[in-house]
């Protein structure tokens, strides 16, 4: 019951984040502040009216920039959930199902990629290409699947040991049926939970990349970049870093609550 509450609250938060991102041009109080707008007259205004979350070092409304910043965050989430997760899950269950050399090859390759620190990889890609949103996306996609591959592999490995897998083989099932009808549905629970966790962490990771100047380039509003810029004016102008920080926290909280609620729904024994 209490877990269901976390699922409901999490879904509400996530829906509000998605809603804000989609409707940013209409609900942001100062939509034009999302771009290269400059208003030195109102720089560093503390939270109040009309700038509810205050303004930054060039006088842009922080609330408006957060609304637009969510778009970048959700883009990262979408890329990970739609690209990295399926690729990782697919490789993981193939490794567990095929066994032998295929298993060794896939999982050792995964281990090698896992051994590279994500930020170092992102730095390398950023240096090889130009620091931009797309290179940040490439870095994230190139790394993120490994976690899903590991997880799906572990889950599928225990499913493969069950008698019903052998029974299905004895019944004459083909590989496609084995992978997607017998194995995958039994791993889906943990994968969903992980995807929800991923959604939270990828926002954080994207924020970290932008903070280091590797991701979204100014003046495009991005929560990580906003924190990086705002941090220079701590502690007097605390809202410039704190408000985007709280915004990240809010979004992550939503996804993590979903993950927590899903886990309870998937595995009611815990």
């Amino acid at each position, binding site marked *: 019951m209490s877990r269901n509450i976390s699922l409901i609250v999490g879904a509400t938060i996530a829906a509000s984040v998605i809603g804000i991102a989609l409707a940013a041009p209409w609900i942001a109080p100062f939509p034009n502040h999302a771009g290269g707008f400059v208003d030195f007259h109102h720089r560093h205004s503390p939270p109040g009216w009309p700038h509810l979350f205050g303004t930054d070092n060039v006088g842009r409304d922080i609330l408006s920039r957060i609304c637009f910043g969510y778009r970048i965050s959700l883009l990262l989430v979408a890329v990970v959930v739609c690209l990295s997760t399926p690729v990782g899950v697919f490789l993981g269950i193939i490794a567990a199902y095929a066994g032998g050399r295929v298993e060794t090859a896939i999982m050792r390759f995964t281990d090698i990629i896992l051994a590279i620190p994500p930020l170092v990889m992102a730095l390398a890609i950023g240096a090889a290409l130009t620091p931009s949103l797309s290179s940040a996306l490439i870095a994230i996609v190139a790394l993120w699947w490994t976690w899903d591959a590991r997880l799906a592999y572990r889950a599928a490995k225990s499913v493969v040991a*069950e*008698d019903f897998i052998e*029974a299905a083989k004895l*019944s*004459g*099932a083909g590989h496609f049926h084995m992978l997607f*009808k017998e194995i995958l*549905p039994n791993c889906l629970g943990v994968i969903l939970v992980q995807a929800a966790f991923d959604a939270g962490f990828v926002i954080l990771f994207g924020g970290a990349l932008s903070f280091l100047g590797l991701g979204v380039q100014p003046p495009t509003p991005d929560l990580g970049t906003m924190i990086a810029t705002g941090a220079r004016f701590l502690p007097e102008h605390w809202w410039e870093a704190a408000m985007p920080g709280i915004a990240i926290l809010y979004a992550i909280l939503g996804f993590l609550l979903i993950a927590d609620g899903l886990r309870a729904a998937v595995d009611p024994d815990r």
Partner: protein
Amino acid sequence: MSAPLLDVNGLTLCVHGVANGVQLLFNVSFLVAKGERVALIGESGGGKSMSMKAVMGTLPRGVRATGGSIRFDGRELVGLSEYERDRLKGSAMALVMQDPLTSFSPLFTVETQFDDIVRSVDARRDVREPERQRRARMRAALISVQLPDPDRVLGAYPWQLSGGMRQRVLIAMALIHRPRLLIADELGSALDVTTQQEILRLLDRLVDEENLSLLLISHNLAVVRQLCQRAYVMEQGRIIDHGPVERLFADPASETTRRLIKAVPPLYGPDVRSQPDPIDAVPVVVLDRVTKLYKRSDIAAVADVSATIHRGDISGIVGESGSGKTTLARMIMGLVPPTSGQITIDPASRIQLVYQNPGSSLNPRRTISQTLDLPLRAAGVKDAAKRRARIAELLTLVELPPTMADRYPRDLSGGQKQRVAIARALAVEPQILVLDEPTSALDASVQQVIVDLLLRLHRELGLTYIFISHDLGLMRNLCNRIAVMFRGRLCEQDATERIFHEPEQLYTRILLSAVPVLTDAEEQAKPQIGAAERDSLFGTGG
């Protein structure tokens, strides 16, 4: 009768926190006199374990006694403070757990876990003793349960010990504080029959020597008969029958008692239910010097096995865990290749497998009809309507309503799931079925129903069965031929009657002598084995 040690009178248990409170036990009364051995018997869910937990004071959170009393040596236990209650646990009354593996943590040595128990029970009784003294007591306790090398056992991790040794350690743990009441939960039911027999004998001797009272929780009447004088039969939280064990068996007053008696098939005597005559002498499975060696192991899982199974046979392979019977079955199925030797299966025959545990052999995420659909589709039945009709036909064949097709395995009972597993095996119309302990994961009363179903299918469809089991009583009433496996070898195979009445090999005789039985006549018909003979095969200990 002397004064009762344990007197449970009108005990009623309820779950609180649920609307209206669900009642678990209804007016349960039983007595255990000093030095008496009493059994609580019944099927799972009957209330045996709840009664036991009420006595031990280990009821789950939210379950409370709402009526009745539990008097232990004249002292009322219901309503006693937790502190007072804890002082009794382990010292005045002790419990021997059912599962010797999960009762230990794999991370610590036996000594650490044993010592923890000794110290915590000591602490509750405000006793303090030096480590050296505790160790000496633990060693003595282990020797008394016939573990001849206590230092090795104490230094070992639980997983380094055999199941029988772990069970002995559990008994030693229960007895170290010299309790007056020993509660044994399904003693030895997780062990092989020969090991179980040794444990039962050991407990029998210890209870006598220490003049203990014994409360045995069991579903196996043969085990109860061997150890206990009186028994109470439980069903749905009530005691429905009780009396001296001999009387209960001779004159069962309730349907449940009768069912429980039927669940122990006779080892000897006239009540043979089936044993088919082979249809003809056509060999359908021929094993020729089949051997399986696994990598990284010097011991052959299956060594040099030759056998012939004829059409219409119900051919039993009996053996204890690790004897190689499952490996043999998997080789017959073609799931693992033999290292050497030849397995020939009649090319006109299809062969299918029914697994032991239907909980694992059915995909929990697929409905019954999806599970049954797969073999039909793979066999090339393209027409969906035809497949649906065949699924309904298969469900009817295994005596399930066709409306079950849209359910998931979790909606079905264990017996129903096993029926579905059998239906799946039958979908492609095989001639041979390999049955790997098809009843051992099921409740005692359900076992007989599944066996009856298998016999009917055998008759009606003209099947050949290869029946793998450790349950000799069951096989005697089912198989026309039996092969006995011991440590990978086929040590004896012949017609069932011959195996049972004139067993040649020592192991076969030991196996037969270890099976707990229900009547004195069977007890006398069993081969009698001396301890020296047994040790000559197994070695001492273990």
